[in-house]
């Protein structure tokens, strides 16, 4: 299993760079992974999406429906793609410490 080092800590990640243990996640992880997803600096808007995703995952054990993410954060899908160029299921979930949503998406 590959690992990455973010601010001095080692994390196991999958082939696509998603951290394997969501419990290890903290703000530093999000900051550390941002550049790899084409984001120069995390703004308040980014954090709003990241925090919502992480708290939803903590409560329900999966990523929320994309439409619910939009509604709860007040951002439409286009804005989310502007914030996270690789999209809500990739960049946003990765920064929020979620496992990669896979299936027919």
């Amino acid at each position, binding site marked *: *299993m590959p690992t990455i080092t973010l601010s001095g800590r080692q994390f196991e990640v999958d*082939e*696509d760079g998603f951290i394997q243990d969501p419990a290890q996640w903290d703000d530093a992880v999000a900051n550390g992974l941002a550049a790899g997803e084409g984001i120069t600096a995390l703004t308040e808007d980014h954090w709003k999406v990241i925090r919502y995703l992480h708290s939803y995952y903590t*409560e*329900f*054990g*999966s*990523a*929320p*429906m*994309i*439409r*619910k993410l939009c*509604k709860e954060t007040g951002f439409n899908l286009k804005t989310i793609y502007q914030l996270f160029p690789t999209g809500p*299921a*990739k960049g946003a979930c990765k920064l929020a410490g979620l496992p990669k*949503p*896979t*299936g*027919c*998406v």
Partner: protein
Amino acid sequence: MKPALPPVPFTPGASAANRAHRAGAKFLAPLGLPVDLPPDWQASALRKLDELCQQNRALPLYLDSCVRCGACADKCQFFLGTGDPKNMPVARAGLLRDVYRRHRTMGGRIVGALGGGEALTEQKLEEWYVYFHQCSECRRCAVFCPQGIDTAEITRAAREIMGSIGVATKYVTEVLKKVHEVGNNMGIPEAAWRDSCEFLEEEMKEETGIDIRIPVNGEGAEVLLVPPSADLFANPDTMIGYAKLFHAAGVSWTTSTYAGEAGNFGLFLNHEQLKLVNRRIVDAARRLGVRRIVMGECGHAWRAAQAFMDTLNGPLDFLDPPRPEHICEFAVRMMEERRIEVDPAANDGRKVTYHDPCNLARAGGLVEEPRQILRAVVRDFREMAADTTRGRTFCCGAGGGMLADELMDVRMKGAKPRMAAFQASGADHVATPCAICKAQFAAAFQYYKIDAQVVGVMDLLGRAIVIRN
């Protein structure tokens, strides 16, 4: 049809490097597959080939009777898109045929390489892994083959052989693991499933002012609807379409968190998984006491349900009638019985064409019903060129367990013929009842810079359906 995109030159090895992530122990072990290549992997694989040849007539028949006429070559979207000769269906099948000829035919055994065969080496296995995961099992080649040779059967066999020695893709095995552990491909647990359904109920309430339910695990309902779980993540309008349809028709229904997945990735790995995943739907239907199983918008789900369910996990005599039904068939029936009304004006301004998911058209026989619905709910409905629709439809490019990010290169190249036909149609919406197609179209539209939207058939029906309290 004039291809809007230039043809790709014939380039050996063009797509040899585009390989899917290999599954590790984490995903192989739960499926009962060896986690490492066994020391006697060659013998093991050949035994499996032997076994499959004895269990499935199509396999030895297809390997024996291909005349290599090449009629299939330019029919495969992956050859058209990549130009890699090993993506010609005849050559793809050749990867297995070579080994079969060497090890299983009398000529091959006696004269070895002179018999036209090749040994199963590590290099051969690598080629199998790459090119049998660049086939979406779409069966388009079979339609044009004068022998009717169906490369999907060969790909399925090759993947089953590889699986038996612990060689499989992470994408397919991870999804199967989630199906068994959580109940659906996306891995949406019951709490999140319920939360998502409630969220959509609120959305519909806001839109219509009416309470339209999306029931979860409701016992004694008339219908068990089995959607692809992607509908509860990425395709909310499809989900809303189902709900409005059942509501308007006055038919009681439910979803199941045990069988929250229409798709059957067993079709992309091995027979055992095909059967086990399929059984979850039958078991859920029995336990919930429903009278009908209705399959949602998923292409290969329909193949697994309509063609295989009764064989694998039947008899289905607890259902009335004793067979699964497709959501498009159900909708057409409701329209014909005048139990729902639609107003196509709701979809005005959309130029809509229809993409036949390969498994619906070529393995499920479902070609007219979605069109009947679309003609009723859309005023500007147009077909793509006839050699790219119905039985001759192009695969979107990511079926058959290929919808993995790391296969994006071959996926986008494989989408090319479909994109060309779409552009030629002049439409700005493509409706397609398949979650894989939807995800692939969205990516391909972006890649080919086509300003268009992909929607489900139910999305458009949901907008047009007249809802009364």
